[in-house]
């Protein structure tokens, strides 16, 4: 089925909102500034509601089914978060209001900074970064500022394991560092010899994802951190996989110097079809002065009768401002709500549930699909989606066939170091029954790969649309259904 675009259903003279007539006199806009053509669609309210409702029905989502995307932590998004974020006292507050009028927002941010610090073992937290990649960039800039402040200008190198997310090298390069890759050893850990070989006095830092993108806890993490620290570098933690560690171990305790959080993965804020995310950064005591400005602090201590006065403070050697205003506040409200409902004893249930679910599913599948590294996994694991006796079938075909069984495919072709990778992260919010059904589908598909490979190659068959021609999209580049009239 095809839904026309909003431009195609436009009918001259329609509008979806009626505004009141003006209660003030009209003022003329100088002719040289007045816009003549406004080529926007003209549709009624019901047109809009039906159009976007129909579009929504073409989407797969967590609310309709299992979404085992590795590295994405597609857990259930509690609806209470949506209620709290929309409270008028949060939703209808201007960011530049005097601090006396926004003590609720500031108290929430102050507590959230402290909670995230406590959960991960860091002394300071900024809530400003808009997404994980933005947090990474902040982290990399903090590393630069730290070395510069020590007048150590030789540090030009950022070490990144070959299993890392692409954002790690991109963030480092964007900040002017030379990226040096280190290999993964046979157990799926950072190869200590190749790490030692690149650690010298030009190392600014190491960007470490732990658990790594293979879903494995870095067994030598203490040694890895020690090697980098002895070379004078800092260790950055990519917090994408923090879900596996909540309440079980704090990255700061392992010697990690700074790390970003993904509120949209670990702390249940919705992914929204690609955003908004939120990527706060936590740092150890020696980096607190470099945090972006501003952060929330206490301006006047409270007493038994009065709460403290919260406001903004600027860290002494701050790298500066990294976006307008103070971060994705709406996401902070959601994460705050979520953390408060788990509390000090409950957070570990998240890590335990996610790791249990991943290991259970891995156990059900590992005799049929080759496991890249056969050891206990954390919150996710990586399978190889190909068999010698079904040579024409690739991971992509398995992914597409899963849609016919009403499951969202796992992440495929990542991490790059595993051939035909299928990266599966079930999260703690899935039941054993769901995992059993998914495993059944995966086993059936493995069977089909050998008996009816064409069924996989041409999948999906039951989706709103078939496999799309990505080459045509990239060659023809139709990015817009409105073509501007060129000024002659």
């Amino acid at each position, binding site marked *: 089925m095809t839904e026309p675009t909003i431009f195609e259903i436009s009918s001259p003279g329609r509008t979806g909102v009626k505004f009141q007539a003006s209660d003030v006199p009209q003022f003329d806009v100088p002719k040289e500034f007045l816009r003549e053509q406004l080529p926007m669609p003209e549709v009624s309210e019901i047109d809009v509601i039906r159009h976007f409702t129909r579009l929504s029905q073409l989407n797969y989502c967590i609310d309709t089914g299992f979404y085992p995307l590795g590295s994405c932590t597609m857990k259930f998004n509690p609806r209470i978060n949506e209620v709290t974020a929309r409270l008028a006292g949060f939703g209808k507050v201007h960011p530049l209001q005097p601090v006396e009028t926004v003590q609720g927002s500031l108290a929430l941010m102050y507590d959230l900074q402290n909670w995230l610090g406590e959960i991960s073992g860091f002394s300071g937290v900024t809530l400003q970064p808009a997404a994980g990649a933005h947090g990474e960039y902040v982290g990399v800039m903090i590393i630069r500022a730290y070395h510069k402040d020590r007048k150590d200008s030789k540090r030009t190198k950022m070490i990144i394991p070959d299993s890392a997310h692409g954002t790690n090298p991109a963030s480092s390069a964007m900040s002017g560092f030379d990226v040096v890759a280190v290999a993964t050893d046979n157990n799926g850990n950072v190869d200590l010899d190749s790490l030692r070989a690149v650690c010298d006095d030009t190392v600014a830092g190491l960007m470490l994802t732990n658990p790594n993108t293979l879903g494995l806890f870095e067994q030598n993490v203490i040694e890895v951190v020690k090697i980098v620290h002895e070379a004078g570098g800092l260790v950055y933690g990519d917090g994408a996989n923090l879900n596996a560690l909540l309440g079980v171990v704090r990255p700061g305790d392992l010697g990690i110097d700074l790390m970003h959080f993904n509120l949209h993965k670990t702390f249940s804020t919705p992914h929204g079809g690609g955003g908004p995310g939120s990527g706060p950064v936590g740092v150890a005591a020696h980096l607190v002065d470099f945090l972006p400005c501003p952060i929330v602090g206490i301006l006047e201590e409270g007493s038994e009768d009065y709460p403290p006065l919260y406001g903004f403070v600027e860290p002494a050697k701050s790298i500066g401002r990294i976006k307008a205003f103070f971060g994705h506040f709406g996401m902070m409200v959601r994460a705050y709500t979520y953390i408060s409902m788990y509390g000090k004893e409950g957070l570990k249930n998240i890590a335990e549930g996610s790791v249990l679910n991943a290991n259970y599913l891995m156990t059900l599948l590992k005799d049929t699909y080759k496991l890249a590294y056969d050891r206990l996994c954390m919150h996710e694991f990586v399978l190889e989606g190909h068999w010698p006796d079904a040579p024409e079938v690739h991971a992509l075909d398995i992914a597409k066939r899963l849609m016919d069984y009403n499951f969202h495919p796992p992440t495929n072709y990542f991490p790059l170091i595993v051939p035909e990778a299928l990266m599966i992260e079930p999260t703690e919010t899935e039941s054993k029954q769901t995992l059993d059904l998914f495993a059944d589908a995966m086993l059936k598909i493995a069977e089909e790969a050998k008996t009816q490979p064409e069924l996989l190659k041409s999948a999906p068959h039951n989706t709103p649309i078939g496999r799309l021609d*990505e*080459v045509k999209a*990239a*060659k023809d580049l139709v990015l817009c259904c409105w073509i501007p009239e060129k000024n002659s």
Partner: protein
Amino acid sequence: MSNPSNFKFAKTDEWVSLEGNVATIGVSDYAQSQLSDIVYLEFLVEPGDEFTTGDSLVTLESVKAAADVSSPVSGKVLEINEALTDDFEAVNADPFGRAWMVKVELSDPSELDSLMTADAYTTYCEERDH
């Protein structure tokens, strides 16, 4: 497509053909088949630029991959094949002919000695496929 016997090849899949002191550089058939359909090509150098071995000359993009064409030799750019910017399909269709990319004046012709012959390169590609 067989690798032309009078061309030299780099481990990073570029080819070089020599006429006098002028070398022409492109990417091999193996390289284009690995990349699959090219959807974009951009020159990173212009005539007059000097470069050394390993510098990036051209960026190629397919749907799933991006690759930089790095120079197997050192020298100065004499000419770039600007027609390729629009006719990037030539990289898939005719990698050893129409899709030549850059003509350069060599600064150190002895660098060619470290490149592979067509036969050696053919074997090298076969090994990577297994």
